[in-house]
């Protein structure tokens, strides 16, 4: 293919941001091309400059950015001459005509990229209003047609809905409709599925793929997820710290990676074919010295009963009242946690998997006594006698709090920006009256050492740390009180792949050396597979399947588990997603399940069936094990 046929050529693109105290070079002389009708993936971690490139192409960089180089857009389909997009006047009429009509973009956050005050249809048909002469009725007809194409069951109704009335996946579909309504020559998708659940991600990828080939448009797919790349891309461009380090067809990149960064990135992703005991190779490994904590831990590591936490029949119902303009509102009750029972064994890591809204976080909050369940019991037994967690109060509750600690998802908002690392890490000790000021500082130092942070950081504030470092501070804080049970609620989902491996290895090492018991909550099956000994799968408030890790991964029984596993994109060209077998409703729709797994609208119709070897699956009482294995 000659260069004249390239749809977009980026030549010597430099982007600098002027910030307080100097300039930051985000992109340093990038060169790449996008062929018409092909999917080009731009891969890199956060801060590598990949989003800045896409903004430069659209001319929507923030005003503090300076750009040089050339971005040639050769839109032969529209009969236009090649034009250097960077030479066009900022927000001038020429670039405005290209934006939305010939080049359009979908963003990472479907929640915030649509205006909450305007109806979906209004926002989509606005693109037609800008770029075409279509009258109002025609705009509405075309918008509704496209809404149907992107998967809205009732486009007429969707047209008049507001974004907040839709789920994240449906909002992203509306965004896609908005980007495609003028049939652009190039679609820029900036992390289009990062904020979505895995089954929804698979559907959106499938939709993008279909529309891309149907409209024969080129796509620039910006992502950090190599699994997405392997399933979508024709060509790959790898960017690292503003430099393009590798570019080429997807086959060459995956089968024969050259650059050390790319090789490292591939080794840092957890995947399902890992041998037991195999470690992820973090790009920057952090040495763990948990030994400094062992002295204190040793005493409490006394042998106790086999089961540390026993959860029985937990239920929690939230009621939502929706009020109409007239008359009384209707109250809808939502069972966030529905008859959940499981045990966490001493020293094991129990993985809890499920999509957003399935109730996994509510379960963890009940264990922490942050949410009170409607019924059920939680028994905690660390060898000093079993206690009913839900009935404790006063001093006993305070004593229990020291034994169960939590690591949160968002490393930014879970640390107070007004406290130094020393304050953050010694606060739990102060609350529980452990030691004196001097010994607390000692403990803080050993904690920092244990999570692989430099002791000189002790007086710094959280903002001076990277995401991965902050998450390590969060882990150190959870370890400060020497807990028996560590609850990790999506501890790596806000982190880059390379940092994710670091944190996972850290948690794994700490668990091994300190003999911690962990409840590891995640929506990412590959991550849970890497961490957990046993895995529980949650769907719509219920645990649908619980089994040892290998059994669940190799031999899943419940249709929901199967659909979750089928939706994970592998960073492997030989195991692409089977888009045809994906269920349109995302796998959590009971009607798609076999009769033996569906309660058919009856109460108490389902119970956990024992398949042997600690493998339980939620099914009808009448179904026998052979029937379930089908």
């Amino acid at each position, binding site marked *: 293919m000659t260069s004249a046929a390239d749809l977009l050529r980026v030549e010597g693109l430099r982007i600098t941001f002027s910030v307080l105290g100097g300039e930051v070079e985000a992109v340093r002389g990038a060169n790449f091309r996008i062929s018409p009708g092909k999917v080009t993936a731009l891969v890199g971690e956060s801060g590598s400059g990949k989003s800045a490139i896409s903004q430069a192409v*659209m001319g*929507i960089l923030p005003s503090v950015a300076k750009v040089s180089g050339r971005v040639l857009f050769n839109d032969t389909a529209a009969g236009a001459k090649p034009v250097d997009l960077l030479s066009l006047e900022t*927000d001038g009429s020429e670039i*405005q*005509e*290209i*934006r*939305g*009509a010939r080049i*359009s*973009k979908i*963003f990472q*956050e479907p929640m*915030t*990229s*649509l*205006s*909450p*005050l*305007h109806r979906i249809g209004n926002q989509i048909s*606005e*693109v037609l209003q*800008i*770029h075409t002469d279509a009258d109002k009725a025609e705009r509405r007809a075309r918008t509704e047609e496209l809404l149907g194409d992107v998967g809205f069951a009732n486009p007429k109704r969707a047209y008049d809905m*507001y974004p*907040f*009335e839709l789920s994240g996946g449906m909002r992203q579909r509306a*965004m896609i409709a*908005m980007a495609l309504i003028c049939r652009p020559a190039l679609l820029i998708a900036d992390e289009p599925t990062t904020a979505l659940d895995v089954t929804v991600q698979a559907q959106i990828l499938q939709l993008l793929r279909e529309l891309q080939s149907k409209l024969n448009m080129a796509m620039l797919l910006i992502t950090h997820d190599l699994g997405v790349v392997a399933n979508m891309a024709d060509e790959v461009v790898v960017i690292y710290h503003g430099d393009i380090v590798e570019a080429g067809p997807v086959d060459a990149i995956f089968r024969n990676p050259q650059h050390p960064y790319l090789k490292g990135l591939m080794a840092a992703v957890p995947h399902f074919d890992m041998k037991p005991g195999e470690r992820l190779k973090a790009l920057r490994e952090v040495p763990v010295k948990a030994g400094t904590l062992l002295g204190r831990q040793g005493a409490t590591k006394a042998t106790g009963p086999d089961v540390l936490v026993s959860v029985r029949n937990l239920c929690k119902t*939230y*009621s*939502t*009242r*929706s*009020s*109409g*303009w*007239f*008359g*009384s*509102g209707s109250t*809808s009750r939502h069972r966030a946690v529905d008859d959940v029972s499981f045990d966490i064994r001493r020293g094991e890591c129990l993985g809890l998997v499920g999509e957003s809204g399935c109730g996994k976080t509510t379960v963890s909050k009940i264990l922490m006594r942050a949410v009170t369940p409607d019924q059920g019991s939680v028994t905690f037994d660390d060898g000093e006698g079993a206690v009913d967690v839900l009935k404790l109060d006063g001093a006993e509750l305070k004593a229990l709090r020291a034994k169960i600690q939590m690591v949160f998802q968002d490393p930014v908002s879970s640390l107070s920006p007004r406290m130094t690392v020393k304050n953050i890490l010694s606060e739990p000790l102060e609350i529980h009256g452990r030691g004196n000021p001097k010994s607390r500082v000692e403990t803080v130092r050993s904690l920092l050492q244990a999570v692989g942070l430099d002791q000189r950081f002790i007086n710094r504030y959280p903002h001076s740390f990277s995401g991965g470092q902050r998450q390590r501070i969060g882990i150190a804080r959870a370890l400060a009180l020497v807990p028996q049970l560590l609850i990790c609620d999506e501890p790596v989902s806000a982190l880059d792949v390379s940092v994710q491996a670091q944190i996972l290895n850290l948690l794994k090492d700490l668990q091994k050396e300190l003999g911690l018991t962990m409840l590891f909550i995640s929506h990412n099956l590959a991550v849970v597979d890497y961490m957990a000994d046993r895995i529980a799968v949650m769907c719509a408030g219920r645990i649908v399947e619980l089994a040892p890790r290998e059994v669940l991964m190799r031999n899943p029984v419940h249709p929901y588990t199967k659909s979750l596993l089928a939706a994970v994109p592998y960073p492997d060209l030989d195991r692409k997603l089977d888009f045809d077998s994906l269920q349109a409703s995302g796998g959590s729709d009971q009607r798609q399940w076999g009769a033996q797994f569906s309660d058919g609208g009856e109460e108490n119709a389902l119970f956990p069936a024992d398949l042997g070897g600690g493998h339980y699956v939620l099914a009808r009482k009448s179904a026998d094990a052979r029937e379930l294995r089908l």
Partner: protein
Amino acid sequence: MLRYILWRIAVMVPTLLIISALVFTIIELPPGDYFESYIAELRAQGEGVDMEQIESLRQQYGFDQPPLLRYIYWVGGMLQGDFGYSFEYELPVGEVVGDRLWLTILVSFFTIIFTWIIAFPIGIYAATNQYSWGDYGLSLIGLIGIAIPNFMLALILMYFANIWFGTSIGHLMDQKYLSEPMSWAKAKSILEHIWIPVIIVGAAGTAGMIRRLRANLLDELQKQYVVTARAKGLSPTRTLVKYPLRMALNFFISDIGSILPAIISGAEITAIVLSLETTGPMLIKALQSQDMYLAGSFLMFLAFLTVIGVLISDLALAVLDPRIRLQGRSTK
């Protein structure tokens, strides 16, 4: 929604009752009553006091009754439209306030319009040209506007008006029209006078609104959906008007709640300095002389306007923002 409105109106009743009790208590708190202040004033002027006449007045207005009974009389009277008797003016409260109320509303109405007309373009300009010279300059003027007390500005303006034009800018109309009924000449005279108090009273409000509009709009301009609109190919001006400005208006609507009471009570001190025939100076004087029915009625009226204002702004927000209207109040 209808149920919500009815509920809100029902809640207003206990709210106003509690406020009336508070108002009554506060007026009762200082030692003595109007007649004692009156006696002290007469004595200070060296005049004799007819104690018998005072006693009979006291009895006539129930000042010898226990406070609880007087409170009930007062509230009961207000419900029937009888706001009591002003001792100071020796007239029923309704008649004392009458004319001044309309003038006050007139001044406040023009002030609000003035504030909006000036603040909106400047606020939008300052937000869209952040850190430009224009933004800095307008912000400086705005901050000065907030920092200078209104009455100070009034004094300065009066001084220069006197020096440069040789005119006095006090009052809301020529003094000869003061007690005359409304006529074309009177209306003309009012319009000639009214712009000075409007500018003075509006200065701080305008400056404050510029700052708030700028801050709100700056927040909204950072949002992702603004980038989305630009990526559609929408021109910067249309983007601004359709998306971030609409979002930034929420604060503006919430403001209505506080504007209504400010219409009546606003700018008392400025009104005194400029000798305006508005209600502000009257309220202050009534409080000073313990003219309790006049003061109490004023305070109750302000409370009533506040409650109504908040209701109006809440309903307007529900109409304009679908999130407030449609999102169920979920209990979490």
